[in-house]
């Protein structure tokens, strides 16, 4: 039976996962195991996380409003392209308070980037 990992995760840049908790396992490759709903260490010769699960890429494209022909064009403030309306939401002015919310640290560490994140559903 494969050895499991629980803790913080980090991406290696190639669609794979690495253990990121301080300790002897930090930096070791792990992969999500669908059958057991756990994260297992990847042994030499075994398929990586990406090789096990990848179907297609999803582009992460920064928005811009300067070039209609370039990727991420958000349109104009009075006529934004669909799905890019948030490009024109201004952050608070220097004299205005931020509207961001923050999790307590212990919760924040597990709701994202952690092997438990998908068990903590409902996080807004």
């Amino acid at each position: 039976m494969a050895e499991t990992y629980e803790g913080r995760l980090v991406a290696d840049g190639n669609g794979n996962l690495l253990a990121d908790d301080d300790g002897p396992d930090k930096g070791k490759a792990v992969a999500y195991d669908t059958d057991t709903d756990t994260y297992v260490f990847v042994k030499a010769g075994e398929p990586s996380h990406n090789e096990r699960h990848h179907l297609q890429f999803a582009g992460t494209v920064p928005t811009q409003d300067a070039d209609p022909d370039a990727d991420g064009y958000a349109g104009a403030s009075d006529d934004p392209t669909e799905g890019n309306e948030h490009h024109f939401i201004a952050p608070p002015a220097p004299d205005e308070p931020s509207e961001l919310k923050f999790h307590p640290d212990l919760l924040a560490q597990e709701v994202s980037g952690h092997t438990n994140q998908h068990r903590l559903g409902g996080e807004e």
Partner: protein
Amino acid sequence: MDFDISPGGVILPRTRIIRPASPWFPTKVGAEILWNDVDKDMRKLWDRLFKAHDLREKFNVVAMAGSLANYSSKKIQDLLHGATAYTAAATNYINLWASALDDTFNGATTGKCAYTSYAALALTNNTTIFAAGSGTTTYTKTWPSDAAKSWPTSTGTGTNNTITYLGYLDGNAGSAADNGIGWCTVTSTTINNGDTPQLAQNAMSVVQD
């Protein structure tokens, strides 16, 4: 208000020279006078400035859709003015959010992406990935310089899987100890099971005037 009396006995408000008390701000009349003398980009900027409905939106004309965070802005100021040492993070951790960010964000800001198997994208902070930029009056760095970079492949919907913002941090503790470096908006994209979110080579531009 002070008054003067005209030779005919009419009371007139005393005229004063108007002294500027705030930064220069274009007026529509001024813009119309100069319209033929400015290039297309400046016309577009003025147009947006005048059409903006409120002060917050006017600021957005200047701020665009991204910024360095308060934390990194302070570090730069202290380094340039006072030579307060700043050691940049060895790794930048690139994260995705499903809700808005601003300059106050950090690793505990709510709305961080959490599709199943999501994790921050670790980019070693060196000149291979963050190569020297170009330009003098406007200096632009683009990254990742060496190749496209991918977040982990999704294995389930999880939560916050429709991404709209990207923010990068100096740590991956997943808490407020991770300081915000910079952020920007990204096109709204839903990450489904089997999707691998990817940042194209040189997709990010950081511009310094």
